[in-house]
């Protein structure tokens, strides 16, 4: 009873363990140091990888970043563009290192995160400053070359004006960040002097551009017969500004080219009254001041400016299951006043990690189907606002459970085939073994021998090597005596002491490697046949 109970408990435990393992069969990776989802299961070893060494490196890196701004603006001011390129590359590399550290140490929510954002913007501003300064120098040279050619001169001067305004805007944004940078620098006991110096250098560079404009642009802007005005002079995303004017002396149908920020934006024709109008819808342009002028052949209008104000956006996200593995993410991107943001990139963040991009259509709606592995996933839509006069926004985090694909039937079929194959092979092997042990004899005689175990068996050892012949005789005698096949010669000798001599001799032949003589074999054969010589 006790034995039975213990067997039952063992069986139940085995079934339980198999059931528990079977539940995990679809996703056999039970645990890795990287895939821990809860704080309680966090692997201490991976936490230690965020070593104190990283934290110690953060503050010196911030110091170096601030120092780099001073060096870079100084080399730009001195027009040493080769050094400036090197400094900018170094600054970018340091910024990348800093970004990685901020992510590793997970401090993006602190004032270090604010420093990181400012630093990123500073990097963009300084890269733009380097390009603009170079281009500005080219324009200055070009302006001297084309003096006397009014048309080309005006084009150069206007482009210079666009560049000057851009640099002025860049400077005001850069200077605005000074207060925050100084505050954070004081908090971490950093040296903010290089950053302050960089603001001064930046100011000097833009002042130099202003001076050039006063010398050339202001002087060379005679009253133009081509007038231009923008109404209203400011707007937000989606608003339409009217760029209109008149051309004294222009003929109806003459083309007028309108340039916004020195880029040809539209070509309109003069109407019968000699006026033109172009409704400009504010789309993907950065917030800030922009310049616009028009040309009609060789005639240039004056330069006017308009302001684009930044606005807030809201992003929505709805999740729906398409099939076992695919999720459809849909949503809208709209401005605060409900206008759809069209053809804008919306980033979908999957499990706080992977980013994939969708694009809004003309209604501000985006849709993206994402294939996900089985399990629970969090998704969030983000609009970064780069290049738009719009602030970044993100949707609430959505959660969805993906069922995952069912197990493919093919591996089951293969496993089943393998199972049958193994079974067949095992049976075949067993059958062959039995066949080799049983002496070749007619089927009828075998049946008779089984029925009457005491009857003399048929055995033939003619032509067999002596040791194999001994094995055949041993098997035959064992079968005749009804001893199970699992018994060794020694067991057989114990079971059938009458034949102990036979089994003892066979043991020596089998295990001691002795070879029986002809006489011995004959004697053993007689014993197997029960002493009846005529039976063989």
């Amino acid at each position, binding site marked *: 009873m006790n034995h039975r109970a213990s067997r039952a408990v063992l069986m139940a435990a085995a079934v339980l363990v198999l059931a528990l393992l079977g539940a995990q069969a679809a996703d*056999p990776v*039970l645990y890795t140091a990287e895939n821990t989802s809860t704080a309680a299961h966090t692997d201490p070893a991976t936490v230690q990888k965020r070593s104190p060494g990283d934290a110690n490196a953060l503050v010196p890196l911030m110091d170096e970043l601030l120092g780099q701004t001073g060096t870079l603006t100084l080399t730009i001011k001195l027009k040493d563009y080769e050094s400036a390129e090197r400094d900018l590359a170094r600054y970018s590399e340091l910024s990348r290192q800093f970004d990685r550290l901020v992510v590793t140490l997970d401090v993006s929510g602190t004032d270090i995160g604010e420093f990181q954002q400012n630093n990123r913007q500073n990097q963009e501003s300084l890269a733009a400053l380097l390009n603009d300064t170079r281009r500005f120098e080219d324009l200055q040279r070009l302006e001297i070359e084309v003096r006397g050619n009014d048309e080309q001169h005006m084009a150069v001067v206007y482009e210079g004006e666009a560049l000057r305004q851009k640099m002025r805007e860049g400077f005001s944004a850069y200077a605005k960040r000074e207060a925050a940078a100084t505050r954070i620098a004081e908090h971490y006991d950093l040296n903010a002097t290089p950053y302050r110096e960089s603001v001064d250098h930046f100011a000097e560079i833009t002042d130099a551009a202003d001076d050039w404009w006063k010398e050339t642009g202001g002087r060379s802007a005679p009253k133009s017969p081509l007038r231009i005005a923008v109404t209203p002079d400011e707007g937000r995303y989606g608003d339409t500004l009217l760029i209109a004017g008149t051309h004294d002396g222009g003929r109806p149908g003459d083309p007028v080219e309108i340039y916004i920020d020195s880029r040809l934006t539209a070509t309109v024709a003069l109407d019968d009254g000699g006026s033109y109008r172009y409704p400009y819808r504010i789309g993907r342009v950065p917030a800030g001041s922009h310049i616009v002028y028009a040309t009609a052949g060789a005639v240039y209008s004056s330069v006017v400016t308009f302001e684009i104000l930044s606005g807030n956006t809201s992003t929505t996200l709805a999740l729906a299951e398409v099939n076992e593995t695919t999720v459809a993410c849909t949503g809208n991107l709209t401005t605060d006043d409900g206008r759809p943001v069209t053809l804008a990139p919306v980033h979908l963040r999957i499990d706080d990690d992977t980013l994939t991009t969708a694009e809004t259509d003309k209604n501000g709606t985006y849709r993206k189907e994402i294939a996900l592995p089985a399990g629970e996933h969090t998704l969030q839509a983000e609009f970064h606002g780069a290049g738009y006069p719009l602030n970044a926004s993100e949707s609430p985090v959505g959660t969805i459970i993906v069922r995952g694909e069912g197990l493919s039937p093919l*591996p089951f079929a*293969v*496993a089943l085939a393998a*199972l049958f194959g*193994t079974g067949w092979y095992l049976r075949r092997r067993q059958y062959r073994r039995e066949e080799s042990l049983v002496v070749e004899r007619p089927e009828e005689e075998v049946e008779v021998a089984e029925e009457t175990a005491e009857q003399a068996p048929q055995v033939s050892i003619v032509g067999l090597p002596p040791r194999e012949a001994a094995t055949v005789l041993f098997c035959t005698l064992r079968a005749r005596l009804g001893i199970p*096949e699992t018994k060794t010669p020694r067991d057989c000798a114990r079971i059938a002491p009458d034949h102990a001599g036979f089994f003892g001799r066979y043991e020596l032949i089998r295990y001691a490697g002795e070879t029986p003589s002809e006489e011995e074999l004959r004697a053993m054969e007689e014993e197997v046949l029960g002493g009846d010589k005529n039976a063989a």
Partner: protein
Amino acid sequence: MTGSAKKYYAAAVLAVWLIIVAFFMILNRTLDLEVFFVLSLIGLLVVAVLIDGAFSRPRYMRYIGYLIAAGVALFAYIVAEKILEIIAA
């Protein structure tokens, strides 16, 4: 070593092997059932070969044969799935 003692020694060796495998998997901070299963099967096959007698076949050896057959079938399933994964990638 008698037949029944051999059986228990084999079970003990197999259990020690499984514990070693689990220990090193934990040391490696990875617990993968597939790897565990494959290593267990290897252990079972080695033990089965070592305890298999030359002239006699105890009953437990017949049962272990069925267990190995099931293990090999499962192993074939895992291999087939891996191949499908590689083809799909």
